[in-house]
């Protein structure tokens, strides 16, 4: 009267295999779950009982013990409902053991026996050492992306029971819906004026350069930022799988086809806690916004309003592309390769660009500017002032290229960077700059002048050269010329100056 079924739990974005062992014996009727279950897991007893009875299956009047092995690891969530129910059916002999031996199960049960979606289905299925996995109907699109495992969807427990015992057929998997054209994606041609801002977006997308937008309220910083994902190239298969796995583990809604194929756009509110931005939690580590934005854009609006400690938490992921979160009980590493776009006002009142309208004192402005630390500020390759458009521009017709045209230029620039062996120019190591981004003599002279005047530091020089390389790529130029350097200088204004410092 013992049965064992494969399942898995989520730790961060990775799955951990779990064996669900069910023992049924004579004794005082009861149901115990051991193996460090959390509250949701322990409550599965009541859900399993109701689901079995609603599905016309029997509930044994016996002593039932469920062990979740390895028993030393904490188990969280409701994804173990289904393996417990299946294990119980096998233990009381309603399911022949060979039906369930090479099969893994994940899913939450409803009281009516229906199966509900669980977060992280992709990682869970990938973690189970089985030939076939049964997942809830709603989790099928994402789960079926896992290679090397037959994935079967089930709508409810009765259907699954019939299929396992051979009384019925396996339900036909739902047809993969075509990815609908992203109709509500905002287009760049909606933006009027903002020539510098639009150009900065193009360069940011082409070179994976982090971008800081500074301007008064209502000048269109958010509007610009929302149009950046549209300029980025479609995700590669590998990137798409990575991002989908994270979204799945974070419980974010996925596209109908299950695969996140467009770069994600995440815009957490400035009240965000460190754990929500970086990732964390107590039992099961949940990926944070930096991971959810992997291969896409992380937009921090009103950046100066974020807690400074939270912002400085961004430094490790920005540098390394991953983030490791450690708690006493567990630790997890998440991918976190995102394009950072920050937006803030030049001063607390927001009108710092026109000093005669600004009502802030010098001290207030300085304190406000200091909320972004120097090291973080250094990570922004592009720093531009965004001004309010002229009324004539606002009312006039579209005055620039739309998303489609710009995205094409970006893709071509990316292709040129790829020929040199880098994903994007923002990631060129400093040691490779001379080889990858050789300077024309007049460009070198222009940079020398800036260095002499003290308006450029050595580190700033490297960042500037990467940006100039991207601009040259956008113009299909082999070498970096003076005009590309001049353009890069316009796109990388000194932070203090942008914040109204004299």
């Amino acid at each position, binding site marked *: 009267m013992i049965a064992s079924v494969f399942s898995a739990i989520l730790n961060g974005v990775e799955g951990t295999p779990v064996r669900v062992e069910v023992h049924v014996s004579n004794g005082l009727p009861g149901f115990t779950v051991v193996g460090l279950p959390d509250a949701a897991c322990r409550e599965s007893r009541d859900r399993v009982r109701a689901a079995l009875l609603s599905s016309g299956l029997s509930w044994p009047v016996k002593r039932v013990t469920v062990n979740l092995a390895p028993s030393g690891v904490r188990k969280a969530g409701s994804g173990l409902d289904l393996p417990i129910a299946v294990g119980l059916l096998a233990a009381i002999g309603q399911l022949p053991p060979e039906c369930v031996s090479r099969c893994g199960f994940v899913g939450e049960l409803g009281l009516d026996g229906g199966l509900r979606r669980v977060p992280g289905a992709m990682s869970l299925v990938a973690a189970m050492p089985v030939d076939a996995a049964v997942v809830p109907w709603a989790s099928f699109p994402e789960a079926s992306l896992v290679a090397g495992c037959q994935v079967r969807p089930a709508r409810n427990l009765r259907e699954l029971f019939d299929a396992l015992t051979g009384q019925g057929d396996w339900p036909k998997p739902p047809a993969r819906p075509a990815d609908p054209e992203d109709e509500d994606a905002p287009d760049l041609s909606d933006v009027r004026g903002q020539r510098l801002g639009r150009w900065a977006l193009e360069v940011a997308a082409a070179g994976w350069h982090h971008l800081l937008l500074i301007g008064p309220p209502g000048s269109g910083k958010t509007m610009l930022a929302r149009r950046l994902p549209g300029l980025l190239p479609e995700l590669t298969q590998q990137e798409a799988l990575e991002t989908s796995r994270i979204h799945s583990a974070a419980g974010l809604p996925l596209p109908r086809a299950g695969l996140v194929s467009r770069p994600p756009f995440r815009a957490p509110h400035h009240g965000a806690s460190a754990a929500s931005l970086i990732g964390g939690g107590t039992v099961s580590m949940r990926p944070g916004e930096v991971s959810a934005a992997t291969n896409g854009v992380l937009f921090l609006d009103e950046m100066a309003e974020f807690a400074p400690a939270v912002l400085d938490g961004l430094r490790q992921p920005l540098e390394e592309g991953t983030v490791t979160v450690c708690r006493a009980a567990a630790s997890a590493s998440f991918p976190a390769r995102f394009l950072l776009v920050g937006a803030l006002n030049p001063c607390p009142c927001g009108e710092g660009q026109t000093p005669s309208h600004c009502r802030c004192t010098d001290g207030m402005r300085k304190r406000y500017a200091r909320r972004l630390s120097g090291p973080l500020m250094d990570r922004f390759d592009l720093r531009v002032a965004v001004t309010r458009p002229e009324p004539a521009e606002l009312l006039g017709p579209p005055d620039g290229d739309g998303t489609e045209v710009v995205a094409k230029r970006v893709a071509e620039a990316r292709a040129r960077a790829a020929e040199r062996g880098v994903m994007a120019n923002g990631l060129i190591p400093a040691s490779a700059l001379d080889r990858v981004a050789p300077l024309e003599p007049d460009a070198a002279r222009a940079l020398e002048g800036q260095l002499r005047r003290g308006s450029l530091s050595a580190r700033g020089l490297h960042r500037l050269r990467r940006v100039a390389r991207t601009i040259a790529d956008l*113009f299909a130029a082999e070498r970096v010329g003076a005009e590309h350097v001049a*353009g890069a*200088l316009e796109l990388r204004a000194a932070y203090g100056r942008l914040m109204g410092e004299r």
Partner: protein
Amino acid sequence: MSGVGHLPEEAYGAALLGLPSMNPRTLRLLLDGSPPSLVWSDLVSNRQVNRLTSLHKLSATAKSNWRAAARSTDVDELWCRCTAAGVTVLLRGAEGYPARLAGDAHAPAVLFAAGDVSVLEGPTATVVGTRRCTGYGAEVAWTLGRGLAAAGVVVVSGLAAGIDAAAHGGALSAEAGPPAGVGGSGIDVPYPAGNAGLWRAVTRTGVMLSEAPLGAAPTAWRFPERNRILASLGDVVVVVESHRVGGSMHTVEAAIARGKPVMAVPGPVTSPASEGCNALLVDGCAPARDVEDMLARIALERPAPPAPDPEEEPEPTGDDRVLWAVDPTPTMFETVLGRTGMNPVEAAAALGRLEAAGRVLRGAGWWERR
């Protein structure tokens, strides 16, 4: 123990200034025209000198403290520190002492300088104002500083936070007239720390002065003393923004006492940071609305822009289109793009060429036509 004789007079001047509880007034009375080396040897040898007895307000303890300190001071070592730090010691009445200060009854007897003291021979303007300035004040100070420097006027200021720093920032940005600063702390002790970079820049391109001994902390009493030097150094004193009471008003009083013209920048009547300035205007101070107001006051004309040589009239190129899109006032790059309709790289490249040819100035994230 230091022997007297082989070191220059300046070394003893610096040593006297470094005695405990020495202040500019006491030092002036103590020296009273005598060479510092003589005063020093009197002190060390415990000779009763009239000068010392004449300082009757000074307690006997203070005088004996001086002796003890003088005996334990190594003037050699002090002098080495001065020269190693590149600091010049100026003695009143000696060669190299700024002529503007020489005629002042309360001029410092000993003054430390870093940089080129001769810049003070040109026309000067002292710009002062509150540390708690508004954006309006900072903008005006910056613009005035820049305009004055561009016209070849030496901008004198105290390197405090707020208006002082903005005025010098503007002056440095023009890369024309040299700046001059007067500190309230030792010349090797930049204060406030946030302006250390500005302090160094002023030393490099102009001159920094201080009458505090080397290593002296920014003590509160030194700042009003410093203000009289500020007032004395300028051909004109302009107050950009000042509360009803404050250090700027001290400078104004010192300037009036010396018969220097004082100007004030009008400010919003609702702004507490402009109360002092507006009050000065009511009292009959001349208003300083812009650089021209100030230049007129120091009887200086802005040098006329070099007449274009007809022989060398450049070909009208795309760069001209960009040139005329830039105003003589700060113009955002965004505005240049909007006016020319050019793509950003072309416009930036054109501006880069115009900058190299000296036709436009690169400002703080904006451009300006010359």
